[in-house]
């Protein structure tokens, strides 16, 4: 077998140039390890958080801003005013949809018999939230549309909050005090995380998880001054700028609608017509300016992946490129050292292709061994990345597919880096090689 023969020659040559070979293997290993770890981090955080349903979930945006104030901004605000959100929510009862926002509210805990308040991260949402995002329940269930609309004081706890307040037991039916009002617990969700948390990027896609879930209207009617999520206001009137959730000049509500197939076009033209109606009513001053991105587009345009993760990935790419260029330099050195051998083989009848093939196999073998070491090192780099004091750090990990991609990349790129040095050697005249070597 010719391949076996080339492999044997390659191994012999490694043995003869132990130091150089080790240097090349380590160089590739370094490059691949950093690439593999940062690529894994990036791919752990990217992808469809809804596992294939991300393309069916849409984020309607309409533009109530006057042209005079936001001339420079061509895209509509990220969120909706309460009035628009309610109108759009009511208009599509046949679709699953969610109206939601987030803030923190004081919740009373009883620690050692003493009542003490602490702030808890609260999500206000309409009933479909749990079904739409497939939230698993440990105890109980969510609330119904009717309960939500009636503004009933019911609450769903996160697993961690239930652990903290009730020691993890089934707390459904118990009452807790939130923002001075009694709430009945109707459900406790199991461990659940949306990565990235695309449905509300206001505090970052990897901010702390929600601790309480409260029906949207109930939440809105609470005595509170703890903010209403990502509120953005515009107005010349001071009174309208008072961060009033009911204000027509403040956007803060996030709306998500599930649309299947052809529903998209219909819904978009509905948004368009809605904008025209609002303009006719005098609420909007601009021509219709609507957007309907799906969850995946939303994640991309809002740059949900932290910049630090992307920066690390790009620096690792450049490190890999430097390592490959270094390997190419080292290959030049190594192949040059074996001129006599190549000259002799050519003189004895080996074709230049045979020499080229042998060198490429050598390069591939270095890529393979370097790649394997790289994969081992990448776990070490991953532990460093996981130490980042940021919400995303606990979600990044190396998947088997990342390892496979990295190993393939290692072999392919090392072979590529070896092509020019190998061509130079194999095309050289055997006479010169014998004399110069």
């Amino acid at each position, binding site marked *: 077998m010719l391949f076996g023969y080339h492999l044997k020659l390659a191994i012999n040559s490694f043995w003869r140039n132990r130091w150089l070979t080790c*240097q090349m293997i380590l160089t590739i290993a370094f490059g691949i390890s950093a690439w593999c770890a940062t690529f894994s981090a990036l791919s752990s955080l990217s992808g469809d958080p809804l596992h294939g349903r991300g393309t069916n979930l849409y984020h309607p945006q309409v533009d109530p801003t006057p042209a005079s104030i936001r001339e420079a901004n061509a895209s509509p605000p990220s969120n909706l005013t309460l009035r628009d959100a309610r109108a759009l929510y009511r208009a599509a009862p046949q679709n699953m949809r969610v109206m939601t926002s987030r803030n923190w509210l*004081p919740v009373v805990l009883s620690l050692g018999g003493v009542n003490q308040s602490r702030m808890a991260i609260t999500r206000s949402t309409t009933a479909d939230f749990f079904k739409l995002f497939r939230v698993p329940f440990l105890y109980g269930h969510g609330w119904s549309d009717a309960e939500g609309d009636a503004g009933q004081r019911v609450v769903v706890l996160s697993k961690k909050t239930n652990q903290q307040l009730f020691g993890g037991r089934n707390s459904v039916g118990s009452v807790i005090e939130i923002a001075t009002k009694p709430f009945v617990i109707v459900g406790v969700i199991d461990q659940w995380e949306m990565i990235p948390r695309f449905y509300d990027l206001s505090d970052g896609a990897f901010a702390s998880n929600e601790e309480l879930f409260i029906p949207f209207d109930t939440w809105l009617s609470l005595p509170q001054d703890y903010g209403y999520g990502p509120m953005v206001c515009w107005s010349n009137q001071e009174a309208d700028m008072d961060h009033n959730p009911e204000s027509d000049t403040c956007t803060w509500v996030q709306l998500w609608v599930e649309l299947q197939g052809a529903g998209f076009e219909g819904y978009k033209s509905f948004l368009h017509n809605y904008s025209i109606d609002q303009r006719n009513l005098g609420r909007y001053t601009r021509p219709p300016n609507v957007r309907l991105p799906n969850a995946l587009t939303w994640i991309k345009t809002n740059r949900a992946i932290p910049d630090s993760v992307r920066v690390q990935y790009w620096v690792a790419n450049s490190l890999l490129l430097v390592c490959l*260029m*270094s390997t190419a330099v080292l290959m*030049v050195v190594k192949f040059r*050292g074996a001129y006599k051998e190549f000259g002799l083989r050519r003189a004895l009848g080996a074709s230049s292709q045979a020499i080229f093939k042998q060198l490429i196999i050598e390069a591939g073998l270095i890529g393979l061994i370097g790649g394997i070491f790289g994969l081992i090192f990448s776990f070490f780099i991953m532990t460093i990345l996981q130490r980042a004091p940021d919400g995303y750090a606990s979600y990044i990990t190396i998947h088997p597919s990342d390892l496979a991609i990295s190993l393939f990349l290692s072999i392919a790129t090392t072979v590529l880096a070896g092509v020019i040095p190998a061509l130079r050697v194999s095309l050289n005249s055997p006479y010169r090689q014998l004399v110069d070597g």
Partner: protein
Amino acid sequence: MTEFPLMICALRRNKGTVVLLVALIAFSVAVVTNCGFLIFNVVTDSLTSTGVDESNIGIIQNIGVIGKSDGLPVAENLAQLERLPFVKATAFGLPPLAGVSEIEVANSLTQPPDISVSYFEGSQGFQETLGLKVIEGKLIDANDIPDAVTQDKLLPILITQQLAIRLFGKQNCIGELVYSESRRFRVAGVIATLKSTIPEVTDLSIVASQRFHDERYGGIYLIRSKPGHIDSALALASKKLHELNPYHVQPLVQTFSKFREDRLSKRVALAQVLALLVAIQSVVTSFSMGSLTSLWVTQRKIQIGIRRALGSTASQVRVYFLIENLIIAGVGSTFGVVLGIVCNRLLMQIFEVAQIPWSWCLFPFILSIFVGQMFALGPAISASRVSPGIIMRI
């Protein structure tokens, strides 16, 4: 320098490899320029003091719960906290690195207020709690601090040295008036520095105080402890504040040092990862450079022998290889610096990165040349040891 044409000739014979090496160095230098600048900024940010007595300041966030009792007035809380052991001063207001606003001011009424400054404001005791020290004039007199409710007042302020020069062209500006769109200020003293987080105006700062009485606000209380007692003082203050305002919530109780560390921690973590990657890259590049120089020495043993036989000294041979390396590293680094700057300007449009000044590029440039020389030294020495007798064995 008679060897210069010789060197060029030798390098031209190995064009392909030389180009590869120059590209490798250029690319490495470009990455080091960008990552190094980011790391440098993080290191300087974590070392630069904000100008306040950081190690003795504590922060307590105290939020009221709507619908429950409002708690004590701010002035009463402050007075009670001040009586605690270990506590030297207290104030109600936001610390540097957190709440600071940007306002526009001018030095006369006839000028439009167009100088952006960082504006810090707190209650009575604010300047003492921050531990500010004046270098000109004096701290704001307690009797001069106007009530928070007073309208159209002349607020006494402290300004930083840099702002004094910016506004009045001199440091001595005590008693001068400063105007913003809606307020008037009188300079009581000049402090050396007070850094804010607002870029561009980071050290152009104004500190103002207003006196609180019966206002019942939720917000941030600052305490300054006697040196070395911040932990005990903070624990006592948090407990006291809770006793005084049982229905309030304290989401944040932290020393200023920890607060500062937390704010920087994400950037520090990124800088550490980048430092690791850049270090690996530099080592890899340096070793390939060393290996290639070593190969060139081996290849040219005969030529070296001839030159030695014709009268070149060992040190001349050594210098020859070092200069050859200097040329390659110099050309590579020059390209690298240009590439680095171009990358920086492009990255500025995608990420929030600062503009790299040309002067900064001297660092990666010199570093690269220095490392190149270090790694060429070994092969150059071995070249200088080539015996002239080698030509007898051709």
